[in-house]
């Protein structure tokens, strides 16, 4: 039993790493084709970037405490695969981890991680630039800050303002199923799925005819839209990437990662995209990443690139938004999520 658990977990982590190295390439290629040009090959922004960064010289970052700077990134990297694992059938029975609170808690930890990373980074591209500012005749200096510190304040605002609609939209399917367990949500949408028995591949058409995904109902459509906005907020994609927009704070808290740790950071961002897309397919479409049911596994793996591709299309057509525009958008999304919740409660 324990051996099955460990082998299954290792296989899942390998699958998520493989996707984490190819999703950035797919996104960049979609951007390029929209912009009327060829763009880099599919493996370059993901796989070869990671390998090249891995083989560079080790440098000491400009940081008051480099060990903490690395430790928080390691925490982020180690806890993101657990989101995929907890939403997987082999972990559903273990210690009550297969609930919505486990997933939400881990997502929150990942968001708060940016605050800690940013406090330990002091790069030369902002305040550290060797330029004589304090000279006779200049305005007096007062409490000078690095870009990373501005970015940390913005990340705190994003946590309090903008991630609320996502958690609400994630909660609605559990309200429909009437339980906090992911198992009940999947069983509600996928009645022929049972985690204990082996399901052969040729029963895929039969399973598809019995599949009733939550995303195709009216509250489901609203929640999908809200979840898509939240996907862009949580992965810091272009309309909402105010904490690491290139024209303002120039990569924000992650500026001082170099060589091996930059490879770790690339993998971390790829893993995050894969993870958020995977829990969408599990919870909203009812197709878990089940290793002992090949039709479910195949369908799940084929549907994963859809959310990153849609996010890349949105990213190509939007500028960076400031808080003047983000706050109304997230308020509207919260209202939509509340309406979806009310619709589900009124139907029963």
């Amino acid at each position, binding site marked *: 039993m324990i051996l099955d658990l460990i082998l299954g977990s290792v296989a899942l982590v390998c699958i998520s790493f493989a996707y984490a190295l190819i999703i950035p390439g797919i996104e960049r290629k979609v951007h390029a084709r929209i*912009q*009327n040009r060829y763009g880099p090959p599919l493996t370059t922004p993901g796989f070869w970037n990671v390998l090249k960064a891995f083989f560079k010289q080790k440098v000491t970052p400009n940081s008051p405490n480099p060990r903490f700077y690395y430790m928080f990134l390691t925490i982020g990297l180690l806890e993101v695969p657990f989101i995929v694992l907890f939403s997987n059938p082999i972990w559903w029975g273990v210690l009550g981890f297969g609930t919505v609170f486990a997933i939400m808690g881990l997502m929150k930890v990942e968001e708060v991680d940016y605050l800690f990373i940013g406090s330990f980074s002091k790069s030369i591209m902002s305040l550290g*630039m060797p330029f004589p500012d304090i000279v006779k005749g200049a305005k007096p200096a007062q409490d*000078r800050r690095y870009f990373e510190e501005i970015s940390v304040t913005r990340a705190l605002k994003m946590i309090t303002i903008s991630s609320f609609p996502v958690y609400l939209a994630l909660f609605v399917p559990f309200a429909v199923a009437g339980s906090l367990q992911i198992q009940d949500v999947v069983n509600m949408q996928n009645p022929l799925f049972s985690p204990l028995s082996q399901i052969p591949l040729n029963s895929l058409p039969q399973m598809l005819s019995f599949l009733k995904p939550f995303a195709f109902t009216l509250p489901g459509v609203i929640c999908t839209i809200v979840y898509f906005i939240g996907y862009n907020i949580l992965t810091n994609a272009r309309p909402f990437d105010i904490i690491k927009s290139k*024209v303002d704070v120039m990569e924000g808290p992650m500026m001082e990662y170099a060589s091996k740790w930059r490879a770790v950071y690339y993998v971390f961002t790829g893993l995050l995209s894969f993870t958020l897309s995977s829990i969408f397919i599990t919870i909203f479409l009812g197709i878990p990443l089940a290793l002992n049911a090949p039709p479910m596994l195949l369908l799940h793996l084929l549907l994963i690139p859809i959310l990153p591709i849609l996010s890349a299309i949105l990213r190509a057509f939007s500028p960076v938004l400031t808080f003047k525009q983000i706050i109304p958008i997230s308020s509207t999304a919260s209202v939509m999520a509340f309406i979806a919740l009310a619709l589900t409660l009124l139907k029963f």
Partner: protein
Amino acid sequence: MRVEVPVGTIHPALIEPFRVRFWVEDEEVVDCEITYNAAHRGIEKILEGVPVLKASMIAEKVCGLCSHFHLWNSIRATEKALGATPTERAQYIRVLVAELERIHSHLFFIGHASEVVGHETFVYRAFELREPLMRILFELTGNRVHYAVPVIGGIRPRANPSEETIKKIRGYVKDLTPKLDSFVQRFLSDPLVMSRVTGSGILKKSVAEEFYAVGPTARASGVNNDVRQQMPEYKPFDYKIILLNDGDNKARVTLRCLEIYESLKIITQVLDKLPAGPVVGDVKLNFDTQFAEAYIEAPRGELYHTLRVDAKGKVRNYRIRTPTPTNLASMEKACVGDQLTDAVLTIASCDPCLSCSNRALVVDAESGKERMQEFNGGRCVK
């Protein structure tokens, strides 16, 4: 709580090295200071005592985006000093290259402004519109940047367009107009981009007049200061001076989009009315002249050159006044009250193109008296 955020000399939002210090209170800018001495190259010092036929080589390299305007203005001042007149065909071709460069500079600005707003796709679209223009200029003059078309008394014979080149330029203008229409409409109707630029970075008309802002920066606030109205070379052509009244970032961007259409009109008129004749006139070099000055409308504003030629044919006391110092000073006032990201966009929207800053104000700290000091390289000359 007030904190200070310096935006450094190397930054993705700037294309020239200058330093901006923002004082920010909870994401809102309350004060700003711009220092732009990093690009000082001492051009007026190396121009002192250069033979007059060689001075044009240096005057052109002051700026890469308005290089034709610097050279044209320098040649105008020299011709006024020496008493030479260029031929008529040469005047028309100088206007043609000038308007082509104005389009090129405004499209570069739109691409750069889109980059600072954060919209990557519009950058690629703007640069895609620009590339055929650079190839046309390459065929007409021989280089993509730094064309070196005017000489004293006319233009370089290499830049004399043949019938084929004129047909190509006409074809380019006809090709560009519908593509430009669709791009400008798409740009000005995008709700997310317009929500960023509308209402941010407002420059009031009184502030623009007090700081003497020039060019499209001031015309977007309602100040009518286009120098082309006073230039005799533009008299035969029919074009509109565009004025807008809002003074925010959207007005500055829209104004430059509309000015591209006026430039296309002027180019069509030049090609229709181009007179035949020689391109270089007979020039008598009467040295030992008085001071001569010339004003011209560069894509960023009003440009001023002055010089005199001494008895041996060398240039003396060359002075250049570029449009950007006062534009940046008025932007210091315009970015107050916005969020930090919008303030960076405001400073990029006045299209700064720094040439050598060439003046210093010396303040006596004890007595408080001020006097103007000219810099000639590292030494101060009164």
